[in-house]
Structure formats: structure tokens, C-alpha cells
């Protein structure tokens, strides 16, 4: 599986994503600069976590206007898999590739902790290696992960099986609507999620629950 990681100014999980991808796929991803106009032919595009443009104005807002995004959109339209983690998820909602918005955490504070997630949907390129209903633990680390969408959109997301990850009961760290942690696009080739699967692929760091996101992608896309 060939992959690319987009680097925005002040992305800071770009290396983490690259390390996880290399470890899982055996192939180094291509690192693509935000000012470039084209992403090489790959199976997966990752928008990494971090604080693109300092999270100034709104998280992901300025990154969503960068030159490379046009090609991300074009490739997503063609069906290339796009994974947005944390800040990457915020970029995806700002670009309109995913519906809704990520607002300030309800408690108004940055939160870093491992959280329980239930797998709501195992019918996707990102989650097929998990069992539906299973609970896993990924760390979150964000100040604005409070997912918001109007009720009609939320109903639609649920109805179409596009809520991929939900915070386990009592573990919602940010006030997110209906405990939503990660959602799929209509064509199911774009996933945005606030928790960090790439930080739990190494047993030495206390967990490997994130591996199956990458395994799912490898199974689907290779």
C-alpha cells in the first residue's frame, strides 16, 4: 500500500503518522508539502494531527485553504482513501469533505488521555479488521474535538452507518454530539477521527489498538 502524508505549517504528528505507516506497511510514505499542487499516485492520503497554522482563527481553517487541498479533494472524489486524524479531521470538516464542525471542548480545556472507543462500523476500509461493537483504547489530545452537526445531519450519519467510532459510555472527553469520535464520508473513502490510532501501534508505548486501522487499509487497498 502506497501512502502520502500531507505536511502543513505546524503539523506535528506528521512524523508519528509516517512512522506508523512505515511500520505497518513496510513502505515509507511520501511526505507532501502543503504548498505543492499535486500528491503522487498513492492508495492512502493522511492528513496528520498537529496545530496547522497554530490553530489560529479556527482549527484547520487555514490549512483547508492551502494549495494541496485542491488535489486532496480531487483525489477523494476519485475514491482515493483519505484519513484525517485530529487536526486532519478538523481540516476535513473545514474543506467540506466531511460534514459538521469541530468546536471547542465543552470543558474549554485541552485534554490528553487514553479513551475507550466503540467500533460502530466495521464495514469500511478503515475499520474492517475490527469487530462491530468492540471497545478499543486510543489516546486523544486536543482542545477542539467537540463534534457538532445539526440533527438532520447527525441522523443521516447514523442512518447511513457513517459513524465509525464513538466514545465509550461515560468517556466522551469533549462534549461531542452523540459521543461521535470519527465519521465516514458519503462514499466511505474519507475518515476523520479525533483520537490518535498512530500513537497506539507499538506495545512499548502501552497499546496496539490502533494497528487495525492500518491493517484494515492494507487489506482493502493493497
Amino acid at each position: 500500500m502506497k501512502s502520502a502524508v500531507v505536511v502543513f505549517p505546524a503539523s506535528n504528528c506528521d512524523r508519528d503518522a509516517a512512522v506508523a505507516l512505515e511500520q505497518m506497511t513496510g513502505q515509507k510514505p511520501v511526505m507532501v508539502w502543503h504548498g505543492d499542487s499535486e500528491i503522487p499516485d498513492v492508495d492512502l492520503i493522511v492528513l496528520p494531527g498537529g496545530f496547522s497554522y497554530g490553530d489560529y482563527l479556527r482549527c484547520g481553517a487555514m490549512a483547508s485553504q492551502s494549495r494541496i487541498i485542491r488535489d486532496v479533494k480531487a483525489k477523494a472524489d476519485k475514491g482515493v482513501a483519505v484519513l484525517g486524524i485530529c487536526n486532519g479531521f478538523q481540516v476535513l470538516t473545514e474543506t467540506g469533505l466531511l460534514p459538521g464542525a469541530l468546536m471547542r471542548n465543552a470543558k474549554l480545556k485541552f485534554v490528553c488521555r487514553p479513551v475507550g472507543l466503540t467500533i460502530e462500523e466495521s464495514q469500511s476500509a478503515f475499520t474492517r479488521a475490527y469487530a462491530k461493537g468492540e471497545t478499543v483504547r486510543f489516546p486523544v489530545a486536543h482542545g477542539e474535538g467537540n463534534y457538532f452537526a445539526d440533527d438532520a445531519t447527525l441522523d443521516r450519519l447514523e442512518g447511513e452507518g457513517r459513524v465509525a467510532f464513538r466514545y465509550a459510555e461515560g468517556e466522551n472527553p469533549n462534549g461531542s454530539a452523540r459521543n461521535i469520535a470519527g465519521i465516514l464520508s458519503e462514499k466511505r473513502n474519507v475518515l476523520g477521527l479525533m483520537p490518535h490510532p498512530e500513537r497506539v501501534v507499538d506495545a512499548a508505548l502501552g497499546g496496539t489498538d490502533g494497528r487495525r486501522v492500518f491493517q484494515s487499509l492494507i487489506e482493502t487497498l493493497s
Partner: protein
Amino acid sequence: MKARVFVTLKNGVLDPQGKAIGHALNNLGFASVGEVRQGKVIDIELAETDAGKAKAELERMCEKLLANTVIEKYEIELKA
């Protein structure tokens, strides 16, 4: 020309920050305080001197970048 752009949350979108401020004001003894909403104000200096054109340009800036119209609305005020 100077412009001031207000970006505020749409009605119906929860504003935890505003709520926290209202709460803190009540706790400080400002009993008269009811609902509080917080937004952004962005002051922009523009080389453009034509008010109409400036306004149109500011609108495009809001739509493209300054506001996220899923959750926010904006107002534009031209000054001097």
C-alpha cells in the same frame, strides 16, 4: 479603509465559552447578567477605497476563510 468583521456562533449552536463567562460573572456577583455569547472580532486594514468593492471583498473573505458558515454567521462593518 478599515473594516471590522464580527464572527459569532449561529443561534442554536451551543456556546460553552459564553456560558462559562456568564457563569463566572454571576459568581462574581453580577446578578443582572443573563445570557452571554462570545465571538470574534477581526479588524482589517484595506487598501481598497471604494466602499462597495470593499464590502464585496470582505464578504468573500468571510465565506472563504473568516467564518465557518456551518456554525457561524458574520457581520461586516466599514469604518472611515
